[in-house]
């Protein structure tokens, strides 16, 4: 008898379809059970789950905790502060989106009505307002005996807002005000009961003693009060281009490179810290340890360091302001007494984001960032690494010295630099310059290692003649360049790989002779 006959086929099909039906029925039942169980998790009733990500971290500094009633417990204070900041966050979000989500969690029943009215009004008039607060200085006035009620004065809250009508940006306004706040503890949340806006109080002057090594006088950078001409280089270890603090971080490699730099008659290196890599608002301690290692090495080798912050950051929206502030604060305050640091470079070539991220946005972010860094580290200079001399006049009054990147025809060098010095009356540093030695099909054999050497020879002659501060790009040719730096096409990438004075095999290129003057 043949095994394959109609009957067996029918039989097999029947069994198979039975199995399939069973499978789907079970899956369906499981889905239904799953659905019916959603929300039944008892742990969710008690608001025990914690927010996994920090979304709003303005600077909060409790100036006073003494009050006539109950002593404030550290734990309660943490919870109170968290909920208070959330009350700002939900209010800011509500004004931005005209949506009242979250308000009932952080405002009591009576109080939230006021916000609902505001939202309704703004929605009707198509007004949206982006907000962030920068700083809070709460001063506890009262904490009730039963631990259910607090009153505090949040002094000099700096608020920054962008006002839109019909989705058109109308203007930006910064305001400082003091808020008197009462909060009640209701079902596990500290909720705002009363808010009263009041006049700002005079700021107390910061009296921290300053011990800078590097200072600025007129158009000169001084080290221990004697003029200091930066003869520097942009530095990434050869095998970790744009990833100095990554997996390949090796103290010995960096020490050897610093020796090369020092022997080549250079005195300064420029390093890059990536915002995401360092953990955004929650700084990764291992990265800080690596940064300390590298700075200590520089100090030991007597090299100054310009640390460029916020590499690969390009958000600038008000939502991320406070997070970036905490990022910068943690880094600069940790190293505020480090002798090796010459300056903090706020951001590499921020003007390249003008078009996509709105110039006003970028500039106001930089402006506030400069304040944050100066407040947390008054010892070190600050600068911004503009990508050309035209944009380098932006925020000139906020930085200690002007940095710009020169990739133009070298005959413009003196004109551009001198003009900048003249207009800003500040020291000017040519923070990046260089040419690739790459000659190949992608640039029609335009360059070569000899042409690169000739370029550097002439540039150094200009620097020597004018006593310019310079930082060349870069020490090494890189075997690997990440896509987000130059692009992913070979004609973009190959060029970027060949800017070094030393090739990727570790052999000095002819240009190395002209690395300094």
């Amino acid at each position, binding site marked *: 008898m043949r095994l394959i006959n109609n009957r067996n086929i029918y039989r097999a099909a029947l069994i198979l379809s039975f199995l399939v039906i069973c499978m789907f029925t079970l899956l369906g039942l499981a889905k239904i059970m799953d659905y019916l169980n959603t929300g039944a998790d008892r742990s969710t009733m008690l608001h025990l789950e914690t927010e996994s990500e920090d979304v709003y971290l303005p600077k909060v500094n409790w100036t006073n905790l003494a009050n006539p009633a109950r002593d404030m417990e550290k734990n309660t204070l943490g919870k109170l502060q968290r909920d208070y900041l959330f009350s700002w966050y939900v209010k800011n979000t509500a004004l931005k989106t005209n949506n009242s989500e979250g308000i009932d969690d952080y405002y009591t029943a009576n109080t939230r009505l*006021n916000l609902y009215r*505001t939202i309704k009004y703004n929605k009707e008039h198509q007004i949206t307002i982006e907000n962030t607060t920068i700083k809070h200085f709460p001063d506890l006035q009262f904490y009730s005996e039963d631990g259910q*009620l607090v009153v505090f004065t949040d002094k000099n809250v700096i608020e920054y807002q962008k006002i839109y009508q019909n989705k058109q940006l109308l203007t930006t306004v910064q305001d400082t*005000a003091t808020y008197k706040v009462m909060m009640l503890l209701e079902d596990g949340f500290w909720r705002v009961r009363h808010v009263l806006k009041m006049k700002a109080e005079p700021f107390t002057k910061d009296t921290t003693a300053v011990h800078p090594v590097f200072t600025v006088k007129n158009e000169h950078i001084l080290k221990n009060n004697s003029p200091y001409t930066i003869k520097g280089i942009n530095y990434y270890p050869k095998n970790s281009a744009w990833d100095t603090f990554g997996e390949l971080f090796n103290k010995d490699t960096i020490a050897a490179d610093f020796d090369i730099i020092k022997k080549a008659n250079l005195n300064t290196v420029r390093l890059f810290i990536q915002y995401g890599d360092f953990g955004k608002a929650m700084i990764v301690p291992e990265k800080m340890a690596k940064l300390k290692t590298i700075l200590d090495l520089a100090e030991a080798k007597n090299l100054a360091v310009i640390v460029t912050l916020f590499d690969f950051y390009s958000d600038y929206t008000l939502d991320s302001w406070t997070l970036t502030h905490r990022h910068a604060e943690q880094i600069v305050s940790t190293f505020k007494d480090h002798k090796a640091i010459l300056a903090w470079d706020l951001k590499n070539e921020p003007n390249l984001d003008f078009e996509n991220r709105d110039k006003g946005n970028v500039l106001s972010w930089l402006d506030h960032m400069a304040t944050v860094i100066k407040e947390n580290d008054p010892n070190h200079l600050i600068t911004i690494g503009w990508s050309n001399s035209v944009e380098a006049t932006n925020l000139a009054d906020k930085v200690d010295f002007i940095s710009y990147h020169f990739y133009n025809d070298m005959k413009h060098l003196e004109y551009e630099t001198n003009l900048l010095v003249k207009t800003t009356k500040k020291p000017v540093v040519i923070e990046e310059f260089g040419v690739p030695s790459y000659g190949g099909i992608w640039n029609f054999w335009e360059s070569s290692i000899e042409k690169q050497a000739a370029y550097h020879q002439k540039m150094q002659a200009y620097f020597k003649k004018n006593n310019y501060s310079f930082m060349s790009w870069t020490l090494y040719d890189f075997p690997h360049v990440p896509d987000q730096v130059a692009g992913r096409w070979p004609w973009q990438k190959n060029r970027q790989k060949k800017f070094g004075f030393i090739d990727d095999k570790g052999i000095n290129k002819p240009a190395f002779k002209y690395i300094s003057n």
Partner: protein
Amino acid sequence: MMKKVLYSALPFCCFFLFVFAVAKTNNADATFRLQTTQNSFTAGTPIALTFATASKTATAHLFVIHSYGKTLLTSQNINGQLVFHIPAIYCIKTGDFSWFLIQNNKTVVSGTFVTTPNNTTPTLLENYLGPPSLLTGTEHFTMMVAIPTDSYDNPKDNNTAVYIKDQFLENITTTEKKTDFFIAWKNIYSRTKSGKMLVSTECNNTASKEFETDIQPSPGKNFTINYSRNHKYADGNQITLLETSIIRDSYGNIVGDGTMVTFQVVTTNDILLKTYAATINGIAIAQILHPDHNETFTVKGYVTGIAESNSIKIDYLALIKTFNYEFTEGNRKITVGPVRSFMNQIVPDGIKVELKIYHKNNLIESKIVETAKGIANFYLLAPFYKEKEYQFEISTLGITQKTAIKKYETN
């Protein structure tokens, strides 16, 4: 010909005129001056800010920041005057009110005015009293926090008088407190007597409801214990009552009902027994079963961690001096009793009788049987007890008797 030129030139002229007109009506930068001199308003009254400008066309926006929100206001230029009516939702709330006059994306003038609570509206009072119960004594207190507001839910200005009152027994206290940082508050101290205290507040003829706080007795002080029993015999059946004195706190208040007292009993053999009772009206009564043998109990009462009593000794006399037993059915049945009590009555049922079976001075087994009508029977079945002789030890009510060696027939 002329006409043709005119016709062709006219549209151009019109166009240019239009362009100029547009340019003219474009919002030219103009200086604005605040005309409104009043810079303090009462909540609930309409507020308008008037700006004067030389220009008859220039307009501007007014951005306002308020305790509870931010918004943008628009206005028309009417003969060089811009009037901004503050929306009612902002007029009713107090606080500093910042405004920024914005023209062509720039803030041209800015300023503030202040809105104060409306004292002509009825006062509302919000009160928080806590903690809701107290212990007696002079160091404990409850805190009354009063937040007087106007009818628009705006906290009253500082230094608004609030009367905080409390009543306890015959005493009524009224204190005037001034508000500061939204609140007027008072620590209301506990009393040395326990009971209920009522608290209320009053501000501008608005009275709060009545708040109640319980003053609970403080933890008790040391106390004494005593016992009572039916008789002094160790019959394993009667109950001895252990009773505390009235437990009071240091101010003489009877401790709260339900205060748990632990009675710890130590026997002659240093065995620890415990019994518990909760107080009612300050007295805890616990029960303890009489031992079934001559015994002395040492008893002490504790309110754990708080107070303890004196220690008392309770003696129990043995119920019997001796008892009878007999062997029957070829020594296979042992009958103990009848066991007789102190008045020669038969002991209550359930008295334990223990039989220890020895063979050549080795303990083979213990059997326990409870008496019924004063008698306990033991059976030694031949299949299980195959030896030729056994000796026994019988104990009950603390008395032990050793029998002679008994012989058994074996198959």
